[in-house]
């Protein structure tokens, strides 16, 4: 029974991880850019949700779509104006650039919001399902995370934009020959990455205290999920997130919670070593 509880905890955590990593994975897979801004974008989404709840009493479920759209616009513009001109350069350049942008965003967030942890408290109580105990807000967060990830999957599979993104990811030149405007698709993809980050931040703010000190942690999770699940793929991010959630939950029980983080990173390094080219079982739709 104890292990069932651990498993359920892991699944809840894993769904959140999947949601926070899927945008990062998409950007990496399609643009071949490691977006160091991702962690800060998550926190920005969380803060915006928190303050609209705290200062204006807006329900986070209402704020979430608005926050997500705002983040989409920010991401779209960042890509179009700043990243697109150098998107084909080596990893050192693109990674350093997004790191620079991250320093700027991070700095402004710490100045305006301070690093104090803040969280939306919904007080929805606790459910007890035959011995497995779970706060309702966490279940809600898990549901939202899965819903958002699922929506992204539907967009990727079923929409014209989704097709174009897949085509650009597979072959940039051939996509251009179909009439797809590659730079615009890059901007949209980066926008979607930011949108998912913002939405994930909003979801996180409902269950965990949000602080700028967490940007690195979230970014680290996104790395690990991507390496486990593969790049640019929604089901991959979901699988990677769930695996990481369960592994961390188990590790927290077996070797102590202070090592849970380490186990995730060790898992990532081990996977990188076993599959040096990464776990990209590249398939179009995923």
């Amino acid at each position, binding site marked *: 029974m104890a292990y069932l509880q651990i498993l359920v905890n892991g699944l809840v955590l894993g769904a959140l991880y999947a949601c926070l990593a899927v945008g990062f994975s998409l950007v*990496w897979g399609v643009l*071949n850019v*490691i977006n160091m801004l991702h962690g800060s974008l998550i926190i920005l989404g969380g803060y915006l949700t928190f303050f609209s709840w705290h200062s204006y009493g807006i329900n986070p479920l209402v704020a979430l779509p608005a926050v997500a759209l705002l983040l989409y616009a920010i991401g779209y513009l960042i890509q179009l104006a*700043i990243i697109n*001109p*150098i998107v084909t350069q*080596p*990893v*050192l*350049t693109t*990674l*350093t*650039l997004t*790191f*620079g*942008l*991250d*320093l*700027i*965003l*991070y*700095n*402004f967030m710490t*100045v305006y919001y301070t690093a104090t942890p803040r969280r939306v408290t919904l007080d929805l109580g606790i459910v007890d399902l035959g011995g497995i105990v779970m706060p309702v807000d966490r279940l809600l967060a898990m549901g939202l995370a899965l819903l958002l990830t699922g929506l992204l999957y539907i967009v990727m599979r079923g929409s014209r934009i989704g097709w174009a993104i897949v085509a650009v990811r597979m072959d940039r030149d051939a996509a251009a020959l179909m009439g797809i405007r590659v730079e615009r698709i890059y901007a949209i993809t980066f926008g979607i990455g930011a949108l998912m980050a913002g939405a994930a931040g909003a979801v996180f703010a409902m269950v965990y205290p949000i602080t700028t000190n967490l940007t*690195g942690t979230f970014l*680290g999770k996104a*790395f690990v999920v991507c*390496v486990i699940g593969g790049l640019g793929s929604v089901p991959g991010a979901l699988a990677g997130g769930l695996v990481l959630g369960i592994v961390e939950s188990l590790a927290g029980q077996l070797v102590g919670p*202070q*090592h849970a*983080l*380490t186990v995730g*990173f*060790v898992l*990532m*390094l081990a996977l*990188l*070593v076993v599959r*040096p*080219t*990464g776990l990209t079982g590249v398939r179009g739709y995923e």
Partner: protein
Amino acid sequence: MTARSWHYFLFGAWVLALASTPLWGGNYVIRLAITIAMYSALTLSWNFIGGFTGYPSFATAAFVGLGSYAGALTQNAGAPMLVAWLIATIFAGAFAAALGGIILRLKGHYFAIGSIGVVEVARLVTASWGSLTGGGDGLNVAFLPGGPDVVARTFLAAMIAIMVAAFAVTVAVDRTRFGFALRCIQQNEDAADMVGVNTTRCKIAAFVLSALFCGTVGAAYASWTGYIDPNESFSLLMTIKVPVMCLLGGAGTVLGPPVGAAAFTLLEEFFWANFLDYNRAILGAVIVILIFFLPGGLLNIPRAWSRIAGRRRSRKAPA
């Protein structure tokens, strides 16, 4: 004077300038000189793997952190300071040799991620191995005896010596077959393999070189400050700052790393002093500007300038 000897001359003058700070500057200036020498050594080190070989390594902080802890623990166990530094150097190098055999099989983004992951794992392990490392509380190291002036001068001399050693190795690499091999790997690894370069061995050697002086710097830093903790020793900020410095000066060159380290440190210091709240944002802006306007680094400015001028001239000429 050839371009090469001109560069050596400039570096020599710069070393003298840093070394002379106690004669004309106060504690603040000496401290700044120590920091510049320290980052120059780190940047020169990174240049072996990141500049010459073209592997985007973000492992610098892991080497520095391990060097700090190896040095501090050895020193606390009773070894003389210099012996502790030597052991830290060897430890960092051995760690890089073992690690390199594994992660140098990765390329591009995966190598970058793998090397960042190494920093994180090293930090987390150090933080949780309380019995040896003091965990999150950190570790105290015995201070050097003899008043703040003596201490400052000693560590200035030490950091400059490490920087000069790293520079000397850079010059040696630059002029020999080994450096040529690294450049071949950077431009086309498969082709390098095909002309007879043992790419695996060369990459590991470059990775070890990129770690050795980081280990020394880490140990010297621990002795200097007298206290280390996991978060500061394995800092993500530092691990990215060092490559940025190298890019700022000009990666893959001999003089670029010290130029970049000095320029960056001075800029950072200026922002700290004048815009305390926004120093990180300004740092970020510097990075963005660097990437857009100085793609070849500061050392490339004269060449880029003559190129722009040349293009203007050719545009004016009748087609």
